[in-house]
C-alpha cells in the first residue's frame, strides 16, 4: 500500500517560501511525475515526502497515518538519487543488502532478496564488483535494486536519468516503466524533462515556483492545458502561442496551436509565410515558418519527408478543432 496525501504542506528556507501551501493526493499504485523547470521546487517537494526536509507547516499522510514527524527510515519509502548515491567502498551485493542489514534481517533472507532483485535488474554477473567498476546504467540499476529490496510502500526517484546519455535514458525509461507495471507500487518521479513525464506517468503534476499548475494524465495535459505555462511546457516541440490580432479573430487574448495541428499548403491557407530552418528526422519534418503578422516563427510538423526548402513560400492552416484559447490572465477559455 502506498497512498500519500499532502495537506496544506509548505516549505520555507528562512524568508524564502519555496513551496506555498499545497494539497496533493497520490493514489496507491500510481506513477506520478513531478515536472517543471529547474528551481520550481519539485525536488524539494520530493524530499519533503521522503522526510529529508522538515515541512514548515501542513501534514503528510502515508496510508492514512500522519508521517509528518516520522524520520525518513520509518516512512517505508525508498529513494533513488540523481547521483545514484551508491556506497563506493561496498560491492554491489553489499550495496543492495545495506537497507536489509540495517533492518537486522538474517543473512539467508538478505541473500534471497538480493539475488531476486539482481535477477530482476540483470545485475547477477556484477554482484561482486564495486560501483566504480560499473557503467552509468548499471549504477542506476544498483540504486534501483537497493530501493526494491526493501519492498517499500512507494519509490521516490529524484531525476534518476539526468546523468545518463540519451540512448541509455530511453532504455532506462522503459525499464522503470516495466518495473512499475510489474510491481504495481506507487512511484513518484521528479524530472525536468517533459518527454520523460509524458511517456512514463499515470499522472503528471506540473509545478512552477512551488505552485501546482495542473494535475492530470499526460493526455489531459496535452489536450487541455489549464494555462499558458502548462501549454508551453508540455509537448515537444513546444506549442505555438500567438497573440495580437490573429488571436482576437479567434476570440481570445492568446491562442495556442501545436505543430502537429497545422496543415501546410503551397497554394492557399490562413497564414502566409516563408520557410526558415527545417529539421528532418526521417519520420517527421519540423519547419520553422516566419508568418506575416506573427512575431515568433511558427513550428509546423509534417509527417514523413516533404520537399520544402529554406525561403520557400507556403500557406499554413491551423486545425480549429485543436485550437487552444487563453484569456488575459493566461487561463484557458473553454
Amino acid at each position: 500500500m502506498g497512498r500519500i496525501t499532502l495537506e496544506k504542506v509548505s516549505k520555507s528556507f528562512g524568508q524564502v517560501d519555496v513551496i506555498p501551501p499545497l494539497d496533493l493526493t497520490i493514489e496507491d499504485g500510481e506513477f506520478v511525475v513531478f515536472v517543471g523547470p529547474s528551481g520550481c521546487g519539485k525536488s524539494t517537494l520530493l524530499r519533503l515526502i521522503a522526510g529529508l526536509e522538515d515541512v514548515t507547516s501542513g501534514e503528510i499522510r502515508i496510508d492514512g497515518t500522519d508521517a509528518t514527524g516520522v524520520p525518513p527510515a520509518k516512512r517505508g519509502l525508498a529513494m533513488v538519487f540523481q547521483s545514484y548515491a551508491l556506497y563506493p567502498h561496498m560491492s554491489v551485493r553489499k550495496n543492495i543488502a545495506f537497507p536489509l542489514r540495517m533492518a537486522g534481517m538474517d543473512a539467508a533472507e538478505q541473500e534471497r532478496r538480493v539475488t531476486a532483485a539482481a535477477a530482476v535488474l540483470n545485475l547477477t554477473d556484477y554482484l561482486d564488483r564495486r560501483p566504480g567498476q560499473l557503467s552509468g546504467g548499471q549504477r542506476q540499476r544498483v540504486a534501483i535494486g537497493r530501493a526494491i529490496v526493501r519492498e517499500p510502500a512507494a519509490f521516490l526517484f529524484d531525476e534518476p536519468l539526468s546523468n545518463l546519455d540519451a540512448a541509455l535514458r530511453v532504455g532506462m525509461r522503459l525499464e522503470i516503466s516495466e518495473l512499475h507495471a510489474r510491481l504495481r507500487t506507487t512511484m513518484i518521479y521528479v524530472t525536468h524533462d517533459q518527454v520523460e513525464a509524458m511517456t512514463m506517468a499515470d499522472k503528471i503534476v506540473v509545478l512552477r515556483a512551488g505552485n501546482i499548475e495542473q494535475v492530470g494524465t499526460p493526455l489531459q495535459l496535452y489536450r487541455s492545458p489549464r494555462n499558458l505555462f502548462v501549454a508551453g511546457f508540455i509537448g515537444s516541440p513546444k506549442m505555438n502561442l500567438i497573440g495580437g490580432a490573429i488571436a482576437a479573430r479567434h476570440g481570445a487574448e492568446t491562442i495556442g496551436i501545436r505543430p502537429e495541428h497545422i496543415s501546410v499548403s503551397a497554394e492557399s491557407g490562413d497564414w502566409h509565410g516563408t520557410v526558415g530552418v527545417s529539421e528532418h528526422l526521417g519520420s517527421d519534418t519540423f519547419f520553422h515558418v516566419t508568418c506575416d503578422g506573427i512575431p515568433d516563427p511558427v513550428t509546423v510538423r509534417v509527417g514523413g519527408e516533404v520537399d520544402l526548402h529554406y525561403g520557400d513560400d507556403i500557406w499554413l492552416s491551423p486545425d480549429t478543432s485543436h485550437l487552444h484559447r487563453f484569456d488575459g490572465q493566461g487561463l484557458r477559455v473553454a
Partner: protein
Amino acid sequence: MATRHSRSAARLMMAPAVILLLGWMLVPLTMTLYFSFKRYLPMRGDSLERGLDWVGFENYARFIGSSSFWPSVQATLLIVGGVLVITVILGILLAILLDQPFWGQGIVRILVIAPFFVMPTVSALVWKNMMMDPVNGMFAHLWRFFGAEPVSWMSDASVQSIILIVSWQWLPFATLILLTAIQSLDSEQLEAAEMDGAPVLARFFYIILPHLGRAITIVILIQTIFLLSIFAEIFVTTGGSFGTRTLTYLIFQRVVDSQNIGLGSAGGVYAIILANIVALFLMRIVGKNLDR
C-alpha cells in the same frame, strides 16, 4: 608529449634536481656508513686527517648491546603510536565538528590550525612552564582547585606528557586533512543511508569512516615520518630522562654528549633500518587503501 625527443629533454631538465637530491642524501648516508665502521672519538684525539681505525661491527654490537637501546626503541614506538592514535581519533571528531555549519566557522578553523605554526621548541617550553609546571602551572592550579595533589608531569608522567605535547602540535594537521576529506563526501550518500535506515552511528561507521580511509592512511604515513625524528620536544622538556629517550635522542647523546661519532653513526644506521621496517608496513597499508 611522449615523443623520444621530449622524453630526453625532460630527463635533461630534471637532472639538476635529481643530482642535487641524490647528493644531499647520498653524501650524509655514505659518511654515516663510513663512520659507523670506525673508531672516532674526537676528544681522544681521533681525527680524519690522522686516519681512523677500522673496528668492523664493534660499534654496532656496542650500540645494540647497550642497556638503553631496547628501551629507546620502545619509547620511540610508544610515543609515535600514542600520538598517532590521539591525533587520528581526535582529528576525525574535530573534523566532523568543524564540518557542521556554525557562526564564526572561519575564525574557529584558523584557530584550530594555529598550533601547527608554533615552533616545536616554543610549544614544548610553553607546555612545560605554563601548563605542566608542578608549582605554577595551569594544571597544578586546576588540580589544587579540586583539592588534588598537583602532578609533577615531567618526572611522573613523562612519556604521557611528551605524547600530549606532540599530539597538540600535530592535531591541526590531522584535522585539516580529515576535514577536507569529509567535505568531499557526497551528502546524497548520507541521505541514502538515512533512507536505508542507518542510524547516526551506523552512518559514521559504514559511510563516513570508509570514506576517510584514504585520508587517514595519508595522515598516518606523513605523521610517522616526522614523529620518528621528534627531538626538540624531548630536549627542552625531560632531556631524555624518565623513559623518554627515543632512538633519535639516544643517537644524539652518543654523538654529542659522549663524543663517540662512530657509535652514534651505528645507531643512525639502526634508525634507518627501523624507519624502513615501519615504512614497509605503512606502504603495504597505503598500497591497499590507495589501490581502489
